[in-house]
């Protein structure tokens, strides 16, 4: 397929791979965190690690939107979904995320009207088609998905669709990166920046990472060659003693982001004073709520929810895994109490979580397997 296959070319990959190896300092081990779950997916889907020397380790970060939703917020969503008058809509991969009392998929099996949508606009269409029922959209995601929620709310307001509301769980990426950087036992050399988030927020918000923490960040696209090139750019910075924000994903990401998207977000959302992240704990100013002008569409105000904070299980060491301090297999419950079928911690929830990825692929990802068939 044109404009896709070019970014998955094995010959080009080998050439970039050789350049990366040439930049490695002998005896040095590099840890690079890809912040975004989409990158984690690409790494495992295409075998990107096969093109990297053993001394470069990719650490999977917190940018998996479903993984960071705390259990209490899942329970709140289920409480709304189980009302007889509600059609509850959400993205597909949210359906299986367990709360304190099961997942939305299980709530659906108990009789709740839970429907998967590809876009919040689909949820709005369902609201129009069902005027005698309440349609609720369970909004999740970083700045990538927040603008589409904002535009949907603007349309709902303009068209006066009163049976539509949003349960807002949008989070912002910068406070999460800060939380990781502020950890005393941080062992990362550099970051691969989230491409889709950067499409919206641009590259400027990452300035503090090289400036205050002395670590490079390269915004990267989602094809395997994008990732390989951004590792090359990071290695080049490290070899030359530079620490900067660079943009590998120039075909999509503008340095200043998307001002129009930022404007609609500013119109529709307000920052929450704090928000609980699964695995990382409470982080101040790290999430969005509906602004007072859109309070009429706020499902948290329209419906009563338990609002109970469900603490992460004590044994779970997701925080350490997310910071790259522990490898997934070093966690005490990994692979025994905590598995992809019965996850305890955030990292095991979605296939993009660091632990689930390792559980499913890990032992074979590091092997050099000869696959001439």
């Amino acid at each position, binding site marked *: 397929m044109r404009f896709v296959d070019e970014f998955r070319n094995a010959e080009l*990959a080998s050439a970039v791979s050789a350049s990366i190896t040439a930049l490695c300092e002998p005896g040095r081990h590099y840890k690079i965190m890809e912040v975004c779950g989409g990158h984690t997916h690409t790494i495992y889907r295409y075998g990107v690690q096969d093109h990297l020397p053993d001394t470069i380790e990719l650490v999977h970060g917190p940018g998996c939107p479903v993984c960071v939703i705390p259990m209490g917020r899942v329970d709140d969503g289920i409480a709304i979904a189980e009302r007889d008058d509600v059609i509850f809509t959400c993205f597909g991969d949210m359906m299986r995320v367990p709360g304190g009392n099961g997942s939305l998929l299980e709530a659906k099996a108990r009789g709740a009207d839970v429907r998967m949508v590809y876009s919040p606009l689909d949820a709005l269409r369902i609201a129009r088609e069902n005027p005698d029922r309440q349609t609720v959209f369970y909004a999740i995601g970083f700045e*990538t998905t927040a603008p589409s929620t904002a535009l949907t709310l603007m349309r709902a307001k303009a068209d006066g669709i009163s049976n539509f509301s949003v349960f807002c769980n949008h989070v912002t990426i910068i406070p999460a990166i800060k939380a990781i950087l502020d950890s005393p036992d941080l062992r990362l050399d550099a970051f691969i920046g989230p491409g889709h988030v950067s499409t919206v927020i641009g590259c400027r918000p990452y300035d503090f990472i090289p400036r205050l923490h002395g670590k490079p960040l390269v915004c990267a696209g989602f094809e395997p060659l994008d990732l390989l090139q951004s590792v090359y750019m990071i290695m080049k910075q490290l070899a030359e003693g530079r620490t900067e924000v660079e943009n590998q994903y120039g075909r999509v990401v503008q340095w200043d982001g998307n001002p129009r998207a930022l404007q609609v977000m500013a119109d529709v959302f307000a920052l929450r004073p704090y928000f609980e992240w699964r695995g990382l704990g409470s982080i101040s100013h790290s999430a969005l709520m509906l602004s007072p002008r859109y309070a009429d569409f706020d499902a948290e105000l329209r419906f009563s929810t338990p609002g109970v904070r469900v603490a992460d299980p004590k044994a779970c060491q997701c925080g350490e895994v997310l910071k790259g301090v522990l490898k997934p297999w070093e966690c005490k419950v990994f692979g025994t109490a905590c598995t992809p079928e019965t996850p305890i911690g955030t990292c095991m929830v979605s296939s993009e979580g660091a632990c689930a990825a390792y559980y499913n692929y890990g032992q074979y990802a590091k092997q050099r397997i000869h696959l001439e068939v």
Partner: protein
Amino acid sequence: MPKQLTEDEVGGRIEAMRRRRPRFVDERITMAHGAGGKASRQLVEGLIVPLLDNPALAALGDAALLGVNGTQLAFTTDAFVVRPIRFPGGSIGELAVNGTVNDLAVSGARPLALSAGLILEEGLAADVLRAEVEAMAAAARRADVPVTTGDTKVVERGKCDSMYIVTTGVGTVAPGIALAPTRVRPGDKILVSGTIGDHGVAIMLARGELDIEADVRSDTQPLWSLAAALIEACGDHLHCMRDATRGGVATVLNEIALAAEVGVVIAEERVPMRPEVIGAGEILGIDPLYVANEGKLVAFVAPERADAALEALRGDPAGVDAAIVGEVREEPPGRVLGRTTFGGHRMIDVLVGDPLPRIC
């Protein structure tokens, strides 16, 4: 405080967990139990098979094999609940006949007779029903197998989605044919009979919820002529065949890898796929390897007959796009690996439930 294990010990524990007989611990049935992945396996092998315990069922083949007076009978059943009931390339009636014919075919059995149970929703238009019975009749003629018995039930409006069909089939396996996952061995070549993912993608698009238009048609077709051609070309060198329906080719490969305790390796670029299916998969975030087919088989053939097998498949109109996609290895047992087009490798595991689109 448990002792800290080494990475290899943790890995060994995960492999042991994968091989354990699945347990069914869920409180209710969810849609995931119907998707053909890990949750389906837990339901079937953790609840149903232990209670109905018998050797023919325990083999968990596409059809049960029963010896009757020296004749080997293959016996199978399948339920069809597709929505919408008509879609580009086929309809529920055609699917119901082909699905059961194919479960027999990949067991090496010539279809002898089918039964059909129709569950109809109150209010269903007679013309719609007539069209589906006609579709069943046409499919039965094409597969050269009669529908010899059946049943009809009507349920109240809203209790089923227009109509459901259950078909059962019986066939005969020629002497000397013994197909089973346990016969698959290292060195075997893996063949796929044509482009994959067509049926599942056609259904997703036909539901009209995605605003994507593409000319993708279901591949529903009978596979007996293909299966017979393979048996003819390979004889005893044909070790196993599977019908890659729910869960797609990836799930079939995993079932074989686990049952035969072998490693399975495929080269992604050799797996036949239509550009429209690749494109829809890219947009929807769905991997065609996990998407259902209704007229494609996967065959495991000893290496010395692999080329003959490929020729036999390509010589049949239902198999013109057939390809050798990979081979069986000793290592890693129970696992499926793919060489990616990017020149790396990936694990191809069984999904828990339906392939869910990723959000970003």
